[in-house]
């Protein structure tokens, strides 16, 4: 008998991201695993405990790679170098005789900062380079680190393991308030070895790292990392400083990898020779998050320990770490981006609740999702009750920031963009008054999307001036423009497919709720209350857009219209005054197009949004917009009310054709049918 699958519709929509650690700690599985891990330190075999200790050091490095590869969707072949340099540099500065003898806390912080700075500088150097160049750059950094370590024997001991004078390079494990982790100790008469003591210390450090990484992942920063990793332009368009956060992603990875290195330094006592940290070992580390799943923190730790224990267990057959990593990479490619962790969760759900398709359909039937193709009526009204709608509207209105009134929301003056010999924009000028819905139409290749890119800051113009709510923003970055109250959608819905609808929406709230990162990491209630408020606003937006029924579903499982509405919802969460929509109806069927335009019209009226939209469905634009611009060959061909545009002979000859007039005025057209 199968357990009945809980409804996909959340009766309690909040707490998607709040208090992740507390909720995880209450899970029976987590309690059981913690108990086993604690007991094993006392009763496990010494050599295995030592191996697992090495696995925990690797796990810390792999957590760093999870942030980099899994969340940031970046790659680094310098990880082994950073790990190794942490081992040697920590050793050199903390060793009393052959090093500097500095306090271990100070040295540990210094090493983490150095690693973070190195990785951040790699991010800055490679900010405009495609992936292959990043591979080259990180590889170059790896070789430079290897050679530097090899050259300076006082740090690493070269290939001999001793300094230039032949003195041993032994490191001492640190002491905490006089209590060491280098000696055996007794608990209730049971002896625990020095490695056992170190195991508990490592476990504690790993637990701290696990809590911090989990909090980071659930915080707006974690969601922003994922969005930056998936789509930098989409992130920038809703106010996330993509390039700055990219550097933070690299720095976080560096700090975590260095923490692993420091732990390894304490574990090994005598540092291993640098050959253990050459470029191929970076691939071994890379294989861990790939196999575990790019967003699976727990499985990354298990896989890292597995990678360390397996070669020891198969020592007789001389199965090395390269072989394990190779198999891991191949299995990771077969499992997909959710990796072993995702597949394990799928298997558990399959065993408990049956096949996924059946579950999803059953869930959707329960919530009425299958009743209509997209849940929207032709006029854009959603299926929620009037009371719920009013409540959702009130929540969302309260969420949107109060903005000072102004007459002109946007002005683009004499914008020119030259791409090689092509004049994509040749002196185009438009103005969007506050509180209006303005359309921009024109034939393919007219420069509409280029103008949108210039307005939103994704492309710098050769000349011209962009003013947003009275401020000149011509040279400013997209996220600075978003901070002034501008947000945009793209031709094809650019959501994070691996995230749920809830997470996608909350990611849009980044610039409204970001605060001191330490507040998120420390779990300050006032800071996390901001996330709770964002979740409430996100659920209200989901209700208004009629996607609340998909609240817990991954966006990759949604149909196109729903994804489009998720993207609009994400923009709403960023608190816009001006919403730019690039071909919102692209790829939608006629009914969904009509419904979407009705929805946009309602949002425009109820939330007081100013809207500028580019669209090819001319009738929909002429029926819904207050004012329309026509762009052709990079220049504004005409501007005016929909009636004036429809009657303009130049627009008819260049774009509309003459059949429209014969059918009557477009505003009188029954609906905006394409």
């Amino acid at each position: 008998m199968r357990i009945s699958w809980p409804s996909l519709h959340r009766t309690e929509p909040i707490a998607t991201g709040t208090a992740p650690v507390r909720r995880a700690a209450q899970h029976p599985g987590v309690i059981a695993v913690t108990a086993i891990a604690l007991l094993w330190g006392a009763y496990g075999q010494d050599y295995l405990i030592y191996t697992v200790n090495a696995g925990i050091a690797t796990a810390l490095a792999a957590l760093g790679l999870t942030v980099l590869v899994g969340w940031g969707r970046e790659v680094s072949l310098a990880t082994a170098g950073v790990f190794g340099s942490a081992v040697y540099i920590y050793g050199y500065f903390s060793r009393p005789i052959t090093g500097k003898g500095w306090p271990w806390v100070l040295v540990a912080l210094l090493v983490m900062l150095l690693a973070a700075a190195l990785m951040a500088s790699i991010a800055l150097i490679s900010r405009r380079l495609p992936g292959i160049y990043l591979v080259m750059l990180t590889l170059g950094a790896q070789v430079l680190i290897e050679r530097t370590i090899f050259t300076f024997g006082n740090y690493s001991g070269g290939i001999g393991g001793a300094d230039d004078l032949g003195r041993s390079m032994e490191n001492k494990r640190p002491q905490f308030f006089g209590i060491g982790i280098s000696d055996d100790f007794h608990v209730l008469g049971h002896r625990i070895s020095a490695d056992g003591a170190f195991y508990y210390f490592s476990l504690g450090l790993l637990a701290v790292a696990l809590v911090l990484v989990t909090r980071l992942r659930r915080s707006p920063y974690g969601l922003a990392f994922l969005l930056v990793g998936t789509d930098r332009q989409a992130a920038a368009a809703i106010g996330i400083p993509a390039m700055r956060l990219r550097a933070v992603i690299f720095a976080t990875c560096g700090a975590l990898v260095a923490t692993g290195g420091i732990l390894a330094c304490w574990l090994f006592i005598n540092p291993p020779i640098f050959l253990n940290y050459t470029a191929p070992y970076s691939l071994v580390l890379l294989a861990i998050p790939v196999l575990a799943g790019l967003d699976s923190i727990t499985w990354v730790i298990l896989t890292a320990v597995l990678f360390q224990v397996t070669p020891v267990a198969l020592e007789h057959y001389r199965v090395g770490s390269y072989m394990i990593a190779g198999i891991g990479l191949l299995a990771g490619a077969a499992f997909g981006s959710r990796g072993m962790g995702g597949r394990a969760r799928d298997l558990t759900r399959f065993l408990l609740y049956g096949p996924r398709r059946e579950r999803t359909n059953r869930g959707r039937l329960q919530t009425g999702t299958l009743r209509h193709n997209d849940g929207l009526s032709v006029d854009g009204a959603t299926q929620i009750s009037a009371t719920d709608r009013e409540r959702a509207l009130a929540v969302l209105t309260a969420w949107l920031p109060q903005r000072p009134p102004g007459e002109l929301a946007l002005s683009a003056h004499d914008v020119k963009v030259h791409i090689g010999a092509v004049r994509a924009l040749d002196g185009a000028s438009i103005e969007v008054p506050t509180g209006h819905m303005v359309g921009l139409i024109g034939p393919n290749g007219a420069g509409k999307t280029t103008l949108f890119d210039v307005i939103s800051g994704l492309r710098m113009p050769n000349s011209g001036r962009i003013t947003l709510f009275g401020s000149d923003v011509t040279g400013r970055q997209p996220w600075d423009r978003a901070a002034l109250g501008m947000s945009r959608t793209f031709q094809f819905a650019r959501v994070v497919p691996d995230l749920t609808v809830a997470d996608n929406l909350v990611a849009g709230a980044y610039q409204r709720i970001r605060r001191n990162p330490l507040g998120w990491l420390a779990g300050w209630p006032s800071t996390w209350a901001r996330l709770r408020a964002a979740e409430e606003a996100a659920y209200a937006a989901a209700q208004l857009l009629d996607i609340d029924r998909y609240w817990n579903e991954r966006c990759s499982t949604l149909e196109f219209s729903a994804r489009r509405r998720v993207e609009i919802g994400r923009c709403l969460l960023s608190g816009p005054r001006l919403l730019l929509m690039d071909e919102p109806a692209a790829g939608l069927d006629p009914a969904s197009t009509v419904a979407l335009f009705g929805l946009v019209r309602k949002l425009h009226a109820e939330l007081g949004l100013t809207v500028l939209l580019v669209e090819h469905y001319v009738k929909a634009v002429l029926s819904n917009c207050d004012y329309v611009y026509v762009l052709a060959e990079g220049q504004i061909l005409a501007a005016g009310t929909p009636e004036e545009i429809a009657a303009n002979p130049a627009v008819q000859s260049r774009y509309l054709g003459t059949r429209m007039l014969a059918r009557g005025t477009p505003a009188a057209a029954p609906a905006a049918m394409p």
Partner: protein
Amino acid sequence: MNLDLLPEALVAGVALAGLYGLLPIAIVLSYRISRTIAFVHAGIAAIAALGYWMLALRSSLIPPQIIYWSDGSGLGHRPELNPRAALLITCAAGLVAGGLYGWVVMSRRVSAASTLTLTIVSLGVMMVLLGTSTVLNVQPEVAPPSPFGDHRFRIGSVNLSANKVATLIIVIVVSAALAVWLSRTHTGLCIRALADDIEAGVWCGIKLRLVGTGVYALSGTLAALAGVLIAVDAGPNPDDMVVLFLRGLVLAVVGGMRSLPLAFGAALLLGVVQTALIVGVFGEVSGAWQELVISGLLLAAVFGMARLRREKFFLLERQAL
């Protein structure tokens, strides 16, 4: 700076370029059909080097077993073949391995996967191949005999081995022939078409799997050949092979991942600079500093290429691996 040594550095550097030049050809060839970096060639080159060592080495000092377990027991016996026969067998194995890999990754289903997934598969196969080297009874510091004999050629004050001269000739002939083949023949057009859009290429009637398998088989053969020639010169160390592959990848990137002559030009430059550093044209430079200078030079070359192609990098745009 000792300019008297420059002619010697030039001659030896050009010869060294031959060793650097073969792997970029294999990389560019496979990149042009799949738009992915075939890291698998590093694995094929490493295994080919070890295989050739196993087949051709004659030594009474090294135990003859092919596979060694950790308890000292082993399996097999080195056949001690003629080096040329060993070369042929190794290249044939490279052809089969490359072809097999191409047959798998150029199937309709797998080739539709993302570039990142295909790159991970390629890295995975490379690591598995490198991983098998740990069970082989090889002593990497012992170089195998050359298939081109022990002759030495004297050019000025430089003594060049027959292996180096043969390698250089092979690289020049292969890169010229492939450059013509890719740009002037119908098959070359099919390869370029598939590289741009696999789906469209298939709808135009190009036999994806056949062409893909053929290209990978050819590039696998070249990788195996490169592995053997490098092993003769520097020993069959798998880790060194990976480093050389990565260096070859940089050269291929300098060639824009499409131009074989440009990649070979970069290999020539690298060979000459490295030799100049070694023989002392710039004074006495330690081995570590040589590596640092070469790494810096390669990075500068890559970034120079990136700047030359800067118009392709749209602000904030995400570029695939």
